[in-house]
Structure formats: structure tokens, C-alpha cells
């Protein structure tokens, strides 16, 4: 490729600038979290005596242990079931292609663009009538439903590319439809499934609207919902708020840094298909 030296330099400078803009808010959050509680530090200044204890304090004030458990439970409730249902339906629409599959699929496709605010009001009354308000089920069950369009569209895209011959061969060997699904197609869907799992995990963990509307007790919410409550409670104590926010970010950031390749790939594909 012909690229002039000047362009390379400009490219590097631009990239570093963009990275700086991305990272500075995180650094500002970190530095501010080290200032003495209750002060109003200005901008990016390193405190005279860093208050590492702020993190411990915020950990307790936010009840981080319970929050982690709560978010974990919600993720466990949402992700495996969504994966299973999404995969089964994706298999049906992408591979079995039963009569009327087109209409069924289009109904899911239209759900892709639906803003959650569009259904939140009746959802509140529905969840209340089911007696689930203020329980984790109030977040888990609606989220599974709301993730269906994406999960189904995603998995259908995978199954649509699988060759027919594969199924023909299994059929000749006497496999029923369920066995064909379970023994042949699911094992081959690994990469598509793991990317979907990453996306669903992230979207569940960061879900805010459902958490604040359907669950009053921050200890039963998702991480993002708990952060909202934390801000309401400690919003005036800036260093403590910053310490708490950072702590709440740690789990996702850690998982992201460990699985970053998969994450980036999943998110890029996710937005293309979504």
C-alpha cells in the first residue's frame, strides 16, 4: 500500500488524541475518587494525601457484595434462557423454515428497533399484576422477552449459513429434528453463541430503565440501576460518588479486558446485524 510518511504521522497523532479523549474521563474519575470525602476538587489535580480508604468506604456504602450477587443472579436468570430460546427459534427460522416462517421472522425483526420506553408503562402494570414487582424476576422475565428479537435474528443469521447437506446426512442416519438440533447444529454454533452470550451479559448488567422502574430496592437491581440509586444517595459527596462509580465499573472492565478480542468482535458484529 502506498502511504506517505506524513499521513502516517498525522494518523498516529489523531489516534493518540482520540484515545486521550476516551480515557481522560476515567482518569478524572479515579483522581477525584482519591480526594478527601466531602471536598470539591477541581479538575485533574492529584490530591496531597490520596485517600485510598474512599474505595473501602464506597464499597460498604454501596453494599457492593450484595450488588455483585444481585447482578450475577439476574445475569444467570437472563442469559442462559435467552440463549436457549433464541437458538431454538433461530434454528427454526433459519434452518427448518416451516410454513409461515417469513411472517414469524419479520415480527421479530420489527422488535429490533423497539425502544424500551415504548412498553415500560404497561409492563409495569403487567409485572405488578403478576405479583413480581420488587423482585429480580421483574427484571429477568421482561429482559428475556426484550432480548428475543436480537437473539433470534442473530442465531437465524448463523443457521441460515449452515449447509443443507449436513442435516440431510444426519436425517439419513435416523436423527429426529431435536437430535439434529442438539447433536449436530448446537455444537457447530459455538462462536455465534459465545458472541451472543457476551452481548447479552453486557446489556443485562448495564440495564437501567427496567431496574429503576420495576425494582425499588437497589440491592435487587442490576449494577447500572444500583449506580443510579447510589448517585441519588451520595450525589453531593463527589469523591465518594466517584469511588463508588469506579468500583461498579470494575467487574465489566475486568471481564472486558480479559475477553477483549471476543468482546470487540462481538460488539462490532452485533451492531452490524442489529
Amino acid at each position, binding site marked *: 500500500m502506498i502511504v506517505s510518511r506524513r499521513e502516517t504521522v498525522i494518523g498516529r497523532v489523531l489516534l493518540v488524541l482520540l484515545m486521550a479523549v476516551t480515557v481522560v474521563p476515567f482518569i478524572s474519575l479515579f483522581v477525584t475518587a482519591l480526594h478527601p470525602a466531602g471536598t470539591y476538587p477541581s479538575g485533574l489535580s492529584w490530591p496531597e494525601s490520596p485517600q485510598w480508604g474512599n474505595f473501602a468506604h464506597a464499597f460498604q456504602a454501596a453494599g457492593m457484595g450484595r450488588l455483585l450477587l444481585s447482578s450475577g443472579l439476574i445475569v444467570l436468570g437472563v442469559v442462559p434462557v435467552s440463549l436457549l430460546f433464541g437458538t431454538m427459534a433461530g434454528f427454526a427460522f433459519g434452518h427448518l423454515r416451516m410454513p409461515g416462517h417469513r411472517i414469524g421472522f419479520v415480527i421479530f425483526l420489527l422488535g429490533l428497533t423497539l425502544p424500551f420506553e415504548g412498553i415500560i408503562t404497561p409492563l409495569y402494570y403487567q409485572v405488578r399484576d403478576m405479583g413480581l414487582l420488587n423482585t429480580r424476576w421483574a427484571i429477568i422475565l421482561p429482559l428475556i422477552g426484550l432480548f428475543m428479537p436480537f437473539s433470534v435474528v442473530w442465531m437465524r443469521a448463523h443457521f441460515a449459513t449452515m449447509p443443507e447437506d449436513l442435516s440431510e446426512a444426519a436425517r439419513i442416519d435416523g436423527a429426529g429434528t431435536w437430535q439434529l438440533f442438539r447433536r449436530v447444529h448446537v455444537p457447530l454454533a459455538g462462536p455465534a453463541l459465545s458472541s451472543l452470550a457476551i452481548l447479552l451479559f453486557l446489556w443485562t448488567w448495564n440495564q437501567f430503565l427496567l431496574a429503576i422502574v420495576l425494582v425499588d430496592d437497589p440491592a435487587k437491581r442490576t449494577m447500572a440501576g444500583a449506580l443510579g440509586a447510589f448517585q441519588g444517595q451520595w450525589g453531593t459527596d463527589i469523591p465518594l460518588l466517584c469511588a463508588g462509580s469506579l468500583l461498579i465499573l470494575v467487574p465489566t472492565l475486568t471481564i472486558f479486558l480479559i475477553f477483549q478480542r471476543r*468482546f470487540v468482535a462481538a460488539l462490532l458484529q452485533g451492531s452490524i446485524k442489529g
Partner: protein
Amino acid sequence: MSHPGTGRRGTRARRPRGAWIGWLFAAPAIIVYATFVLRPLLLTVQYSFYDWNGIGASTWVGLDNYRRLVTDSELFATILHAFELILFFSLIPVLLGLFVAATIRGIAQSRLATVARTVLFLPQVIPLVAAGIMWSWLLSSTGLANELLSAVGLGGLTRAWLGDFGTALPAVGVIGAWVLVGLCTLLLLAGMSKIDPALYEAARLDGAGPVREFRSITVPSLRQEIGVCVTVTVIAALASFDIVYVATQGGPGNRTMVPGLEIYYLAFSEREVGMASALAVALVVLVLACVLPLQRFTRDGSR
């Protein structure tokens, strides 16, 4: 909607693909989707024709809620604000992303670019609420933004950006742009890696400069990726909630009130369920009206 099992044994012999059994596989997804999405969606439409406080009896008011939506300037302003946010959530990230991606195309394989790929993704991984909290602090009267302005001698411009009537909405927009610019850059960069390098070589040999190259090769080849970026960011702008909720709560006055937040307040604070539902229907329709034409645009480009 589904017809699980009906006559599947009879048809299976003739239709080796399993015919109706497919609906059995799709049934769990259809049931949860219908219960927790389609049913509430239809109820939203139904509620929007009523005046209801959420507790007592409801009265049929026909299209009154919709009439109020277009005549009540405060409510209609929320929709205008959402469109104003598109400038920041979509236009800036896509243009900036295009520019940056085109500039760094030559060094896309370098180690710096690999690091950048991780760093630029950070805003996508954190909850929007956290982005809102970080930026409320950066944009506050003693925050970094003002400190930088003072440092370069523009101290006169300093203000509480999110609390000022004139700057609150753009400030919210900047937060959204920060979240989305990395995603757009990387999506576009990934798209560029698929363009045949021979095209660029040919252009260079014909004496085309970077600008010409950008206009004649890069942008047309990225039609699909640009469409995706615009779709994702436009939805994010129109349906924005988390960032506004945390950063401004719709204030000062109603300067940053967006449809999502207004629905939340109407339904759960002011107990105007009918009005909230009408606004929700408008929001859903608005998103579809903006996004569906974009799909056609990208499809045509790729086929």
C-alpha cells in the same frame, strides 16, 4: 400465533425439513416475546386513547392525548430535543469516525492501532449511567472542561455546562458523542479493511490526493457500514434515557427533556398514564420512521 404440533407426523414424511415442527422450536421465544413485548406494546396503544391515573377508572378520550402532544409546546419540545440530539449522537460520531478511520487506515495493522481498538471500546462496555456520572463531573463548574478553558485563556467561557439553559442540551449531546464515536470509528475501520487496496493504489497512481481518495473510494465503499452507524446512533439519540436521567434529569427548566424521560415522569410521577402512552407510541413510530428508510439505503448499496 403458533401451531405447535398440528399434524406434524403426517407432513414430516413429505416435507423432510420438518414442516410444522419448526413452530414447536420457535414457540418458547414466541411466547416470551408475545408476553413481555407484544402484549405491552398493544396495551401502550390502547392506553394512549384513555385518560387514566393508573389507579381509578379510566375514561376514553379518543385522540385527545395525541392532540395534546402536538399542541402542548412542552411535550412537543421533547421530540425536537431528541432530533437535536441526533446531531451529536449521530452526525458527529459518524463524521469524526469517518475522518479518523480514513486517516489511520494506513496504520491499521500497527501496535498502536491494536491498543486503540481496546481503548476506544471502553465507553461501549460501561453502563451509560456511569458515563453520565463521569461527565457530569467533568462538565461541572469546577470540572476539567472549565479548567482547560481557563488554562488556554478562555476563562470567560467557563460555566456549569449542564446547568446552563443555552448549553445543557449540547453538553448532553457531547456525552453521547463520547460514548458512540469509538464504536463508529471501529465499525468504519473494519469496513475499510474490506476495501480492495488495489483501488487506492490505482487512485494514487492517477495522482489522487487523500481528499479525492476519501470522496471517491472510501465513502462509497462504506455505504453499508455508514448505514449501520447511522441506524445505531439514531436509535440511541431518539430513545436516550440513561444519560439524561443521570446528568440533568431533564433540566434546567425542560431544556434537556427527551421523550424517554418524559414518558417515565408522566407515567410514574405525574400519573398521566394515557399521555405517557401516547408519547411512547409516537416515539416507537418515530424510531421506525427514521430507521426503516435507512435499511433500504444500506440494502441497495450492498446488492
